[in-house]
């Protein structure tokens, strides 16, 4: 009898546990967000001081006529899926931000925070089940184009044109250009706005370790300005240290704008489909410029100026770490703005004095202007805040959530800086703020101060109603951003179609292999492009046909 009772108990326990496993209420729990080593989370914060002052420009979207919206119902709860680009749970008082935002908006936000490093994968999985899909989701730029093209996102063109933000008169000078980048083809093939972001996408600039450059005989004013000069510069830097001076996270990046970490080598070449000056979509990988770019990579590796680790697809963190070492690399391309300051502090913390006796000199990294052949650095399309097609009340979500991000007041303060008393405090002057120690470092020997939440002052596209209270933590932030701002242009737009979606992964596999083969000297650039045309020509033609319809 005892045996039967035990059997029944075991069976019951199993059934109860299985029911527990299937409880849908648990599935929406916010996962702890972790360090977002590589992407937008690392986007720098810097303040140009008066960036968003008086000069403003209203958003213009000529594609869709602005209409007066009907009565909009305020949602009680909004489900939001977000990556690591806002305060991380357990790392910097995210819960305080959530609570303050709920109060400021007068509604409840249910957060879904997958791990930042696997966010793109989680997005793909989330879209497979509309019943559990969030109302609002932040999407990497290439995902944005894909999901917009297949109708998984709500077309917010009208809503944006009629929004308080767009008509506030607080938009910055660059806002129209940025808003134009938001436009992408919808399921009907017509361009529209399917997402927004309160800031510019930012971009990367080439940093040079000043102490090594000086050892190689260069000053900040004599840094190379063209490819020939850059080639010599690389060789000189190699001679100065005895190690390969340049490293990047792979020979080509899979996220737009793809070539941003090696701009001097790629120059005008673009390894993806883009719209040329005449408005026609072309495959940049088949163009003569790509042949030359690949041969430049081969030259770099052959002459030992590109660290061979590049073939192992190192992470951006690996690349950064190697730059911080005294006997590491001395040139790398990375984000402008706050990262200039981070690089400076990291160089300082990794300084041992074994090679370079002057500590102050060692912590200086010069941001290089783009060489003549590059022309301008690329400003990427930022990740996009989108409303999904499964949202039951998209107008309400747009009006009471999305449109409030750049309200120029309390809500913008929360998105830009966080919660007063938790993430920052007002200074005695009453006009500026100072960041408070982050949750992860508070009380430790190496306290790190909060500088921003989602976006930084220098990059925002909507000004505060009053003056932005930000002050730069270090002049290098402003200097770096200024250099980028003066020497950048928007990256090509991203497109998507069914046939592109079907074969883009295979195309990238082929491109990756060919680029690596050329860089290692196993074939010439022309041979690589010929092989690409032979093996991928049919697919490329089909994709171009779909894009140019």
């Amino acid at each position: 009898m005892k045996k039967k009772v035990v059997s029944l108990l075991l069976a019951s326990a199993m059934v109860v546990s299985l029911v527990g496993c299937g409880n849908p209420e648990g599935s929406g729990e916010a996962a702890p967000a972790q360090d977002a080593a590589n992407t937008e989370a690392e986007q720098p914060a810097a303040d140009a001081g008066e960036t968003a002052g008086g000069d403003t420009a209203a958003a213009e979207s000529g594609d869709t006529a602005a209409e007066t919206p009907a009565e909009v119902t305020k949602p009680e709860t909004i489900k939001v899926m977000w990556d690591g680009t806002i305060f991380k749970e357990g790392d910097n008082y995210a819960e305080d931000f959530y609570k303050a935002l709920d109060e400021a908006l007068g509604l409840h936000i249910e957060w879904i925070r997958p791990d930042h490093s696997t966010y793109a994968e989680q997005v793909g999985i989330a879209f497979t089940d509309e019943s559990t899909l969030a109302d609002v989701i932040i999407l990497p730029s290439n995902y944005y184009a894909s999901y917009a093209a297949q109708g998984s996102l709500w077309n917010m063109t009208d809503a944006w044109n009629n929004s308080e933000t767009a008509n506030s008169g607080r938009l910055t000078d660059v806002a129209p250009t940025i808003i134009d980048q938001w436009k992408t083809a919808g399921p009907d093939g017509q361009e529209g706005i399917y997402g927004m972001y309160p800031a510019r996408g930012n971009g990367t600039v080439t940093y040079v370790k000043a102490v090594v450059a000086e050892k190689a005989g260069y000053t900040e004013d004599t840094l190379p300005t063209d490819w020939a000069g850059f080639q010599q510069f690389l060789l000189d830097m190699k001679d100065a240290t005895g190690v390969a001076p340049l490293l990047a996270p792979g020979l080509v990046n899979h996220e737009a704008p793809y070539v941003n970490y090696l701009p001097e080598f790629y120059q005008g070449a673009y390894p993806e489909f883009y719209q040329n000056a005449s408005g026609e979509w072309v495959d940049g990988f088949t163009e003569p410029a790509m042949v030359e770019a690949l041969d430049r990579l081969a030259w770099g590796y052959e002459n030992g100026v590109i660290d061979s680790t590049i073939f192992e697809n190192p992470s951006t963190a690996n690349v950064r770490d190697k730059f911080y070492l005294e006997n590491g690399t001395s040139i790398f391309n990375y984000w402008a703005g706050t990262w200039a300051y981070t690089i400076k502090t990291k160089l300082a913390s990794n300084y041992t004095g074994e090679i370079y006796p002057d500590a102050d000199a060692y912590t200086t990294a010069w941001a290089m202007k783009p060489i003549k052949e590059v022309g301008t650095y690329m400003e990427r399309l930022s990740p996009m805040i989108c409303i999904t097609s499964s949202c039951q009340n998209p107008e309400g979500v747009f009006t009471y959530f999305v449109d409030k991000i750049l309200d120029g007041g309390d809500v913008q303060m929360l998105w830009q800086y966080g919660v007063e008393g938790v993430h920052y405090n007002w200074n005695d002057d009453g006009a500026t703020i100072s960041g408070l120690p982050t949750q992860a470092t508070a009380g430790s020997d190496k306290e790190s101060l909060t500088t921003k939440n989602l976006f930084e002052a220098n990059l925002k596209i909507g000004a505060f109603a009053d003056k932005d209270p930000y002050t730069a933590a270090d002049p290098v932030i402003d200097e770096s951003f200024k250099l980028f701002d003066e020497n950048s242009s928007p990256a090509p737009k991203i497109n998507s179609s069914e046939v592109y979606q079907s074969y883009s992964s295979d195309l990238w596999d082929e491109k990756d292999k060919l680029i690596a083969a050329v860089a290692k000297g196993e074939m010439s650039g022309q041979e690589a492009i010929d092989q690409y045309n032979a093996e991928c020509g049919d697919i490329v033609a089909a994709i171009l046909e779909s894009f140019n319809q």
Partner: protein
Amino acid sequence: MAQGEIPTHPAAAIIVFLKDEGMRMLCKTCNAEIPKKATRCPACGRAVVKPQKNLYPIAVAGAVISFVGGFFPAIQNSDAAKKFNPAYGFMNYEQPVMWYLFMALLVVSMILCAIKYEKFSIATTVAAAVVYVIVYNNICNRHGAPGMQNGLAGAVVILGTIVGVAGCFMNVNKNAAERKRRNGELDYQYTGNKTVWQRIYIYRGFYIMFLPVLIFVIIFNYLPMAGLRYAFTDFISGQEPSYVGIKHFVDMFGLSSLSKLSSKHFVAAFRNTLILSIIKLFLNTFMAVVISILLNEMFNIYFKKSVQTIIYLPHFMSWVVVASIFKMMLSASDSGMFNQLLMSIGLIEQPIEFLTSESTWRGVYYLVNIWKDTGWGTILFLATLSGISPDLYEAAQIDGANRFARMRYITMPALANTIITVFILNLAKVMNLFESVFVMYNPSVYDKSDVLQTYIYRQSFSGGAANYGYTTAVGLFRSVVGCILVLLCNKASKKVRGRGIV
């Protein structure tokens, strides 16, 4: 323990209970217990007749074939360039209840065969075929048009029905012949006069204990298999799945002009999976045997235990950590310890690209696998070696056998069965290759390193809205090959060891 004695340990109780009441063979005439290998009843002397091989698995196979046929298109576009789309079958038939009915009938067929009522399964298998015919006619009426042709479903369902029905007939006939042949002789499998249901009732306690496991297996192992149907759909993230018939298999095998590239990558990944797995298996097993024998020859117990602990440890390290360590050591850059060492002692002038060259990558991969898993692999062999009677070694030593001779004539034969068992068990897992490759490969060596699971991963998560239909199709293919390997291993195991592994 004496017969009938009440056991005190619960586990012992179960064993005795089974032996006493259920598992022993009884003489049908005198009800005496018959030893397992007896040819006659020890009490009454009646001959024991061993049954012929059971044939009902053929009937089950027929039902399974028909079941699979339900996924294929009944009619489809005849143009290969369009990947035979549009396609129509049960999965996009306007009345899904017909598909459920079709599947239910075939599942019933399988269950009937399993509980030895195979003759009734003829009716359900045929009924399923009738359902298909009705649906096929309806689909032809609705979607039949010039340019459409018959799909695979018809042929597969017909084949399944024929096999299923033929299997049943063969089994029924075999049973009739068997009864005639026995002619009152003892049934080898006779365990009493109780039916299956009566025995289930007697052992209901065990069945209730088994219930949680059954529920667990159904929910977590069998229900997810329903997802395999997506292999026949376009399941793009953000869209509802839509039936496309064999489109993804056309892509996989390069049967349309646009799919040549996909097929090239798929075939390379499949080839690499087999090569990497099988060579790794041979090397790991060989090394584990060698190290086991060496460890067995050690007399200093402290040294032996220390060595064992050291070689076990890498098994518990994650592949990410292992890959990082070897990348640091073997890198061709200035930080690569091994290359720097070779260059400093003048053996090489240029660093060797261990991890980024097609000629060296596989070698490094095998080496890392040996380093990580060989220690763990020795456990079974050491257990076998510890079971060898020392008397054998002593006798051999007295006979003048040296160490090598003892190893050759005593140790190796004793290990042979275990080696084959381990080899066969691992052979069944050759398609499960992902983590170790994923953390070590890079685009420079895709042609030599890309395996099916890394290929699936890139196709699913390399950016944008992925088509999970295609990756499911690749996964399905991988599973089918894995399943065939398991069955072959089972067969090999039966041949070698006298019993299967599944």
